[in-house]
C-alpha cells in the first residue's frame, strides 16, 4: 500500500511538472486566441481577460478574411511548406542512404560537405540567390521559395537521417537484395518505413521556420498572387497604426495548419517507435 501511495504521489508530481510546462508553453497561444476575439479597446484595457459579451467581436477575423486574398496566402504558405518538407525528406533520406549504405571514394568528405550547410546560414547568400532567381526567371514564383527552403533544410536532414540510416539492419537490406529487389525498392519499401520517427523529427524541425519565414517571401516572392501568410499578415502592421484585431486573428488562423501537420507527424513518430519489425 505504501509503495502504491509513493507511486501515486510520484505520478502526481510528474503530471504537475508536465502540466505546468504545457500551461507556460501554451500561454502565448492562449493570449493570441482570446485577444483575437476582442475589440481593439478591450485588448489594450485588459489583455488577459476572456472575451465577454461587451468585448466580443468577429471584427478581426472579418477584416482578415475580407482584406486581401487571404485564402490564397494560406494556400501559398501551405504549398510551400508541404512541398519543401517533401523534398527535404525525400532528398535528405536518399543522400543519407547513399552515404550510409555505399562505400565510395570521398564518402566521408561528401558527408562533411553536406553537413557544412548547418553552420552557414543561407541568408548570407540572399543577394546571390536573388540574382540567380532573377536570371532563371523564378522571382515571384512559389518554386523560388520551395527551392530555397529545400536547400536550407537539407544539411540538417542529411545529418540527422544518416545517423539513423546506420542503425537500419543490414540483414533486412541484404534479404531484399537476395530476393531480387532493386535498390530503389529497398530504399522506399524497406528502409523508409523504418525511418519514420527520424523523418518526423526532421519534418517538425523544418516546418515551423518555413511556415513563419518572412525574409525570403519578402525578397523572392512579394507579388500578391504568391504571398505567403506571414508576408500577407504584414499589411495589418502599419508604420503608425497596427490593426491588432486583424494581426491576432491572422496569427490565430495561421496556427491551425501547423497544428494539423504537427499532429500528423507526431502520430508517425509514435507509430514508428512501436512498429519494431526486425528481431
Amino acid at each position, binding site marked *: 500500500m505504501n509503495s502504491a501511495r509513493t507511486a501515486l504521489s510520484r505520478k502526481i508530481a510528474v503530471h504537475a511538472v508536465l502540466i505546468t510546462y504545457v500551461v507556460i508553453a501554451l500561454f502565448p497561444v492562449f493570449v493570441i486566441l482570446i485577444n483575437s476575439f476582442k475589440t481593439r479597446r478591450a485588448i489594450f484595457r485588459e489583455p488577459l481577460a476572456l472575451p465577454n459579451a461587451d468585448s466580443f467581436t468577429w471584427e478581426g477575423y472579418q477584416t482578415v478574411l475580407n482584406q486581401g486574398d487571404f485564402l490564397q496566402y494560406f494556400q501559398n504558405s501551405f504549398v510551400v511548406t508541404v512541398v519543401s518538407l517533401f523534398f527535404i525528406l525525400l532528398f535528405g533520406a536518399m543522400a543519407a542512404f547513399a552515404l550510409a549504405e555505399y562505400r565510395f571514394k570521398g564518402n566521408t568528405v561528401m558527408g562533411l560537405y553536406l553537413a557544412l550547410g548547418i553552420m552557414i546560414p543561407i541568408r548570407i547568400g540572399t543577394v546571390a540567390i536573388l540574382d540567380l532567381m532573377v536570371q532563371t526567371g523564378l522571382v515571384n514564383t512559389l518554386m523560388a521559395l520551395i527551392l530555397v527552403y529545400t536547400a536550407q533544410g537539407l544539411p540538417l536532414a542529411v545529418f540527422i537521417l544518416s545517423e539513423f540510416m546506420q542503425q537500419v539492419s543490414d*540483414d533486412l537490406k*541484404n534479404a531484399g*537484395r537476395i530476393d531480387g*529487389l532493386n535498390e530503389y525498392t529497398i530504399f522506399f519499401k*524497406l528502409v523508409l*518505413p523504418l525511418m519514420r520517427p527520424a523523418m518526423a523529427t526532421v519534418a517538425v524541425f523544418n516546418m515551423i521556420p518555413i511556415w513563419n519565414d518572412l525574409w525570403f517571401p519578402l525578397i523572392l516572392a512579394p507579388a500578391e498572387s504568391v504571398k505567403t501568410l506571414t508576408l500577407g499578415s504584414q499589411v495589418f502592421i502599419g508604420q503608425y497604426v497596427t490593426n491588432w484585431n486583424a494581426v491576432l486573428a491572422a496569427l490565430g488562423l495561421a496556427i491551425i495548419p501547423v497544428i494539423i501537420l504537427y499532429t500528423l507527424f507526431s502520430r508517425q513518430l509514435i507509430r514508428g517507435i512501436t*512498429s519494431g*519489425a526486425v*528481431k
Partner: protein
Amino acid sequence: MTALILDNVCKSFGEVEVLKNINLTVEDGEFVVFVGPSGCGKSTLLRVIAGLEDATKGTVQIGERMVNAIPPAKRGIAMVFQSYALYPHLSVAGNMGLGLKQEKTPKDEIIKRVGEAARMLSLTEYLDRRPSELSGGQRQRVAIGRAIVRKPDLFLFDEPLSNLDAALRMNTRIEIANLHRQLAASMIYVTHDQTEAMTLADKIVVLRDGQVEQVGAPMELYNNPANQFVAGFLGAPSMNFLRHGENSLGIRPEHIQLAETGLSARVTHVERLGGETNAILVTEHDEPITVRFFGQHNIAVGEAVHLTWDAANQFMFNAAGERI
C-alpha cells in the same frame, strides 16, 4: 557435381585483410558448417558467397557457373539471417513469396510453394499475420520458409539460432537437420556454437583470422585436430592444455580419470549437470584442468586427488600450436 567451389578467395576492407586465400569445395547435398571465434570472417565469407560483398581476389563458383559478376538474386542461393530480417510491411505469405514474385513466377505456383513450405514448418495458420505478431521462433521459421520456397541450389545460414532461447534452439536445430534430409539440398551454415557445428555438419570448416585452419568431418576434427586451435575450439568443456617443456600437452576432460597416483590436483569448483559432472581443478604446477565425469559424482570442492589418462588420448603441440 559440386555445389560450390571457392578458389583463392580474398577479401579486404581498405587495408584490413579479412579473408586470406580461402579454398573450399562443397559437394552436392552436403551440410557444411563454418565455425570460428567472433570476428574471424565467417559472415564475410558467407556474404562473399551470396554476392553481397565482392571478393577482392579469387573466384566463386556455384554449381557450374562462375558467379563473381552475378548479382545475389541470380546466384541460385537463399539466405537466412541471424536477425530474421523479415519484411515488416508484408504478411508471412508475402514474406515467403516475395523472391518468387520478383522472378515473375506465376501466382498459383507461388501459392503452392508457400503453402508447402508453411506445412513443413507448421506455419500454415500464421500465413496472414505480420512478422510483428509472431514469436521469435515463428519468425525464424518464416525466415527459413522464405529460403525454402525459392528452391535454391545452395542455402546459406548466418547464425540463424543465436537469437533463440536454449530449448527453442535445440528444436530448431533438429528441424534444420530434418529439412536438410528432406530437401537433400546443399547448405552452408555459420555458427560460433560448436554444438551446432558438431551436430549438424557433414563437414566442418574451422576458420581463424580469415584463414581456414582445418576442414573435415566433425569426428575427424575432434579425434584428430591439426593444431592446438582446432583442438581447443571443438568440444565442450574444451580440451585441457598443460605445459610440457617447450610444448603443450592436450587432453580432453572426459579422458581423465581419478587414480591413486598420478598428477596431483585440488578441486576448486564443481558443476553438477545431472547427466554429467564437471570438476575444475588446479594441478600441482598451478595449471587449471577440467575433468568430466559421466553421471553424478560426489567429488567435492577442496578435495585433493590424483589424475591419470591413457597416453593414447593425449595430443602434443609445439610452441607455434602445431601438432607434433
